[in-house]
């Protein structure tokens, strides 16, 4: 009787990899994170096109492609591997930059902005993970200082009429405030039927994106909560004691760049604190500075300045908010005895 002999195959020991534990990984990658943030920006991008037409799409495309191109060129020029554009971080910076520009921004502003964001804001400091300031905001503020009139003239929204983008310019709700123009209605602010940057208009679209970010665990709730909460509190108090000085808190919360700033810019992982308590302090600081600039300062809007300022404080905040490790309390008690 011939029984079939089954050959037991053993692993080839010479082909075994030896490395440190853990031997399995969670499967999270940088590009997965970046793509999810890009998805979260989608409602705001769609709203921008709805209100400002194809011109908005053009600005977004120019900035996104521009940032990726600058990333590749920089890496080429500095003789580094050029595949870092694939991680999605440059595209995200580009889209965020577009969100900070007007639909009427000329093409060269988009390209210059990309150069400033990726070159000055990111690569000069060593690239992804090493930049102390939010790259998109670096570009925004540099452009604001360099081209004040271009950067503060806004296209009047023209909902649903995609091609009809005339270069009619108007004031933003916050500029109206500074110059005592009639104020926009709260519902216009909420849906986005107001002048401003692409990403400054529709609070609704930004809230949808923000909810997605929170649900996916991509941002810490502490930053938007304390940022928006602080602005609401300070502007609310200011309005309560002097209604002439400033409109009610809700106007401040919905107008300008607060929503995009609180959910998308201040929460940038690289430039915000890592600890939960640090995030609360960070958001609070952003809120205070924003409110002070808006209510008492010379500029109509203070969100980007406040975030950049707090970016600079992030290492300090991180250092002083290091929590006590597990098992620390007992040690202290015992040595005290």
């Amino acid at each position: 009787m011939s029984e079939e002999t089954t050959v037991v195959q053993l692993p080839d020991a010479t082909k075994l990899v030896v490395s440190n534990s853990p031997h399995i990984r969670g499967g999270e990658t940088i590009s997965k994170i970046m793509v999810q943030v890009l998805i979260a920006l989608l409602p705001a991008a769609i709203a921008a096109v709805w209100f400002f037409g194809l011109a908005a799409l053009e600005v977004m495309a120019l900035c996104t492609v521009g940032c990726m191109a600058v990333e590749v060129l920089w890496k080429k020029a500095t003789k580094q591997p050029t595949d870092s554009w694939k991680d999605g971080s440059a595209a995200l910076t580009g889209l965020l930059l577009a969100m900070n520009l007007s639909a009427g921004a000329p093409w060269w502003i988009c390209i210059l902005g990309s150069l400033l964001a990726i070159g000055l804001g990111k690569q000069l400091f060593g690239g992804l993970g090493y930049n102390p300031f939010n790259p998109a905001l670096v570009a925004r503020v540099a452009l604001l200082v360099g081209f004040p009139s271009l950067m503060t003239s806004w296209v009047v929204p023209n909902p649903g009429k995609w091609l009809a983008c005339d270069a009619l310019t108007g004031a933003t709700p916050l500029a109206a405030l500074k110059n005592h123009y009639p104020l926009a209605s709260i519902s216009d602010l909420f849906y986005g039927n107001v002048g401003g940057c692409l990403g400054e208009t529709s609070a609704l679209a930004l809230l949808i994106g923000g909810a997605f970010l929170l649900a996916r665990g991509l941002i810490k709730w502490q930053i938007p909560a304390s940022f928006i909460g602080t602005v609401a509190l300070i502007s609310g108090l200011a309005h309560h004691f002097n209604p002439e000085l400033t409109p009610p808190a809700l106007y401040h919360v919905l107008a300008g760049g607060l929503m995009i700033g609180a959910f998308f810019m201040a929460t940038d992982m690289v430039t915000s604190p890592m600890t939960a308590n640090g995030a609360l302090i960070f958001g609070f600081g952003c809120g205070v500075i924003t409110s002070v600039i808006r209510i008492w300062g010379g500029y109509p809007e203070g969100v980007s300045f406040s975030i950049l300022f707090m970016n600079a404080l992030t290492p300090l905040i991180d250092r002083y908010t290091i929590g006590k490790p597990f098992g620390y309390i007992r040690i202290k008690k015992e040595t005290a005895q």
Partner: protein
Amino acid sequence: MSDKPRKFKGGVHPNDSKALSASKPVQTAPLLEKYTVIIHQNIGAPPELVVKKGDLVKKGQLLAKATGFVSVPLHAPTSGTVTALEKCHGPTGLSVPAIEITADGKDEWGSPFEPITDWQNAEPAVLKQRVADAGIVGMGGAGFPSHVKLSPTKPVDTLILNGAECEPYLTADHRLMVEQTEDVLRGAAIFARILGLKTAIIGVEENKPDAIAKLKELAGKYNVTVQSLHVNYPQGAEKQLIYALTGREVPIGGLPMDVGCVVQNVASAAAVAEAVINGHPSIERITTVTGEPVVNPGNWRFRLGTPISKAIELAGGVKYQPAKLLLGGPMMGTAQNSLDVTVMKNTSGILLIPVEQVSQYTSEPCIRCGRCVEACPMDILPATISQAVENERFDWAEQLNVMACIECGSCSYICPSHRPLNQQFKRAKAEILAAKRNQQKK
């Protein structure tokens, strides 16, 4: 204690992959011709040989005696002849001294110990001596001598049995709790008697409902409470288990007894029951042989000194070449480069993992997402410590409490930039300890 599952702070949720072997009953591995028993299987001092080449030994006979308090004796896995005393491939990749025993096929017991059948009334000191004599160590992976933990120098009010088995893939403790429920509980009762305690708590992760049900059925008889635990890695880490069950935090650098606890692994408990009631020393253990490449993953009772190659053969070999061979689980296990390593008292698993699971990630810059901070069960800041280590600032790493790290690997597991965090912390800890030793010398 409530029925609500307990948990600790932080942790990660890897796919547990236990289904491969969880329902496979434990099989006893057939007697081999040769066993290569590694001499130093415990934390602490290595035992000292008492046999020489050519000696005839009986199953359970003493091969090496303990040298000091933190040390355990070693016994023969079967009857036969000592055919070689030489070095063999150890689990850390280094060559280690071992005893080769060629079996005579009779598998005759030398019966070194008198069974203590009336253990409920036996002297605690006698029971403790038996635990020490039987060479029992922490079989969950650490290999720390069990009798040392049973000699606390501080008052202890809680005995905890660790049945969490939080490492993915491993099911050895699971099967043990299902199939030898009574042994585990008896062992717990013996531990309690030694410590002068009336009760014990056994913590089991929720993903082992059959084990929890069986334990609950019999636990009352032995005054043991069964507590289910959240499925969260590293639930089975001593400090995390104590916190989940009692809410007490073991101080950094401290021991469970500092918070009045003693923790023992369930497999060690079963081994103690065997040693006390049947008089058999620790010469075998249940090990899971598993992983996607394995033909028939399952759980086997192996004798000490069984080569890994034989264990994999019993599991039907592999369907395809695995990328890694691990002793232990995928989170904390050690990668092997040889099939000649043999089963030891703390070998809970022999795991083969395919290449998809071990993609050679290149490490990218930290984007400070903070996931490692959330995952760290010790509440330290892995990302910041990693920065310190990269700059060789070990003093800074120490200030950031790197010494509290339990090396569970949760941070490395979760990192989207695939940074070698766990590896860096191991290095930092070694550097800090080395610097301390140098300072003491001066």
